[in-house]
């Protein structure tokens, strides 16, 4: 595929995107692509430039340098076409509080050029799925934070966007709202919606994202899948195994790929550079000696740890 084709195919294609506020460089010439159909996490500590990047990509803010395209449409030069294909869930719930949930949704329908009958059908479906149908005619000012956030999601989805931007969508929400929102995001993604998720919730990113970018001080530190990021920060990985009957750690130490083995209670704790080879060796050993494997698990660093290591915050 040529570079031009890739530009058209990518959901987001950002090149040297830059934004400054007075003397402060909020986003420092970042480049990345988000492929169609993936959930892309944008992680970073507070003030790293996540929201500014999202605002530039959604056309809310003009970049000072570089460019960004949404499905091939430049966000500065063809903003209407680019925005038409996106839905946006900003960090702060921003529905109109003086009108009802239904009126907010109908307003979105009109602003995105959705035919009225279709907008009404879609609004009913979304409000039902998000547990708001009973409150559809009530003014939003009486809604809880979770309800407002669910409404904002419904408003962003009314026109069936191909790309959904979410800025801290579950920040400060109750368990029910968080569960509803993350469940809906998974379903949307299964149905082909590309998702750009800005968050500092590592667990959320770990569970939802295909790839994550870590941004710090306006620069992208790394982009990879959550699993690879976690693996990349530790040279040695830990495997815990428990055999019945129990065996000595010395039985395993000579196997290829295993760096060390020790007994801790009823289990053996093994360190290795190559998880795959070590697990194969352990299972072969068990089979050859007629041992029952009661427990086998790999302990890898969490995304939290990877994040802290990559942003240098763990050494602070």
């Amino acid at each position: 595929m040529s570079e031009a084709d890739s530009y058209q195919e990518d959901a987001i294609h950002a090149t040297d995107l830059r934004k400054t506020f007075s003397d402060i460089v909020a986003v420092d010439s970042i480049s990345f692509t988000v492929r169609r159909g993936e959930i892309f996490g944008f992680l970073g500590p507070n003030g790293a430039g996540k929201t500014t990047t999202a605002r530039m990509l959604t056309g809310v803010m003009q970049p000072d340098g570089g460019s960004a395209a949404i499905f091939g449409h430049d966000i500065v030069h063809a903003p209407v076409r680019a925005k038409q294909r996106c839905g946006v869930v900003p960090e702060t719930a921003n529905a109109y509080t003086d009108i009802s949930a239904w009126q907010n949704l109908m307003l979105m329908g009109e602003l995105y050029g959705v035919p009225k009958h279709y907008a009404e059908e879609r609004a009913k479906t979304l409000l039902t799925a998000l547990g708001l149908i009973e409150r559809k005619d009530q003014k939003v000012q009486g809604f809880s934070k979770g309800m407002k956030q669910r409404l904002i999601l419904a408003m962003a989805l009314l026109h069936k966007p191909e790309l959904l931007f979410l800025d801290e969508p579950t920040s400060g929400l109750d368990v029910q709202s968080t569960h509803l929102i993350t469940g809906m995001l998974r379903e949307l993604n299964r149905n082909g919606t590309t998702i750009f998720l800005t968050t500092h919730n590592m667990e959320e990113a770990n569970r939802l994202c295909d790839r994550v970018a870590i941004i710090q001080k306006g620069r992208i530190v790394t982009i990879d899948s959550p699993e690879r990021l976690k693996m990349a920060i530790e040279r040695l990985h830990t495997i815990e195994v428990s055999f019945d009957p129990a065996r000595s750690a010395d039985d395993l130490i000579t196997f290829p790929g295993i760096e060390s083995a020790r007994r801790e209670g009823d289990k053996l704790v093994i360190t290795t550079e190559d998880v795959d080879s070590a697990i194969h060796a352990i299972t072969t050993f068990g089979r050859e000696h007629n041992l029952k494997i009661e427990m086998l698990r790999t302990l890898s660093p969490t995304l939290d740890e990877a994040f802290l290591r990559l942003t240098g915050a763990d050494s602070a």
Partner: protein
Amino acid sequence: MNPESIIEQAKRAFAITKKDIRIYYAKGPVVIFGLFMPLFLFLAFALGNRNLPMPFLLSGLLAMTVFFTATAVSPVIQPWEAQARTLERLIACPVTMKTLIAGDMFASFLFAVGIAIVPIMIGVLVGVVPLYPLLLAAGIILASFCFSALGLLLSTPATNVPSNIMMLSSLLKFPLIFISGVFIPVEQLPFAGQVLAICSPLTYFTDIARYCIMGTNSFPLSVNFAALAVFSIIFALLAIRLHARTVSRRI
């Protein structure tokens, strides 16, 4: 569907208009303020000048009403929206800045035209019937458009505090009332006042209202309409350009 087409953007501008009317205009205090402010100014002036003819007073009341109502809410919509974070939602929608401004302006325009009926009805009730009703209607429409554009222009400073814009707006609006022939005909103003009057769009609408209600005018009608049209275009273009420049600083 081409979202960039003029028709599609016009439909979306109308959606913004409906939203503005529902949220900002269709409220008792706004309607009452739009009527009471000019009415009290009118009564204060009328009581102090009891020998002035009723058509003169009513044409002044009509000019003030259109001016005050068209500029009552439009300057503070964007600071309000920025404060409530709804401006970010609007900007993220597939609408241009022209569409956004047109939507806000049209709401203000409809409000001004609607409220203008009240002083005309008061006039009819006290026996002052416009001599040229169609010309007066055209004048009201053009003036409402012009003053709505002025209202939007007043909201361009990048602040999210509506009271800051209200203060700026009042600083401009009240002096304009006194130099635009509303209370004193332009010919009777001192030379400096007459120069200032020429710079005020309200002068031209007051003159149209006075001609249509009592048959006298200071400037030729064509000059009045042309001046209002020129002011309208300048205000609207400036509002679009300046809002595009300052909007990201509000977010």
